[in-house]
């Protein structure tokens, strides 16, 4: 553990943010927003929550860059996967 910047109170703060985002997600689903707006908001909230967990709970924010590169690899590969599959998603 190289960094001293994570204390119990910081973790609790992240927890409250995650909790509020989860409640917000469920709330907007029940609100019956237009489909595209709903999808956009949900994706933003999900990515936001996931990166909070990775950055703070998994300490990626305070880690060596080597580990961040390892962590980033699957996302790059998934984007590649989606690109390669676009011909299946939008058939001619």
């Amino acid at each position: 553990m190289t960094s001293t910047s994570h204390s119990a109170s910081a973790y609790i703060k992240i927890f409250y943010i995650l909790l509020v985002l989860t409640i917000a997600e469920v709330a907007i689903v029940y609100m019956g927003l237009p489909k595209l707006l709903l999808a956009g908001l949900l994706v933003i909230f999900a990515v936001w929550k996931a990166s909070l967990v990775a950055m703070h709970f998994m300490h990626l924010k305070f880690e060596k860059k080597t580990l961040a590169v390892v962590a980033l690899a699957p996302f790059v590969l998934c984007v590649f996967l989606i690109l390669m599959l676009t011909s299946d998603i939008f058939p001619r």
Partner: protein
Amino acid sequence: MSEVAAMDAGVEPAEAPLTPENWGKLGMWLFLAGDAMSFGCLIVGYGILRHASSTWPVPKDVLGINLTAFMTFLLIVSSVWMVLALAAIQEGNKPRFNKFLGLTILGGALFLGCQAYEWTHLLGHRLPELGISFTNNLFATTFFILTGFHGMHVTGGVVYNTCVLAAVNRGRYEAKHVEIAGLYWHFVDLVWILIFTFVYLL
């Protein structure tokens, strides 16, 4: 000395190389990157099948999201307990560590209980009502494969954390091992956040 410092001033300091101290952490990250690809493929596959299908139901109408919102809450809380357990063992506070890692394990076990209940309800009542089953409907197939794959990860995490709890109390494991177990547990939480959004809410 001052010349060297001046020369280095504009350059970012080189990263300290990996040492045997954090090889374990690197190993876990490599495993998780591979595991993320497994989940990535399943989620992307789910998306493509759903996009191509004209009869995909609205997931929240079939599945219900109140129980799963609570399950999301359970995993997030147990993730927080895990970081608190790590903070405790780093301070050398064994009783506090035992308490929080015990709670982490309990949170995971409760999550599995909820999932078992959900699956039983879906397979026994909800899906037959709609006339679909695991084998004749892509929505049901992808749903059970995705949540089942994740549920097995949670099961693995509960076993893993229990082993860590025992090993620390026998004096064989220390803080760095707890940190590695924590990485796995937070990853399981992170994946559930994505599944909850993409499979249940979207």
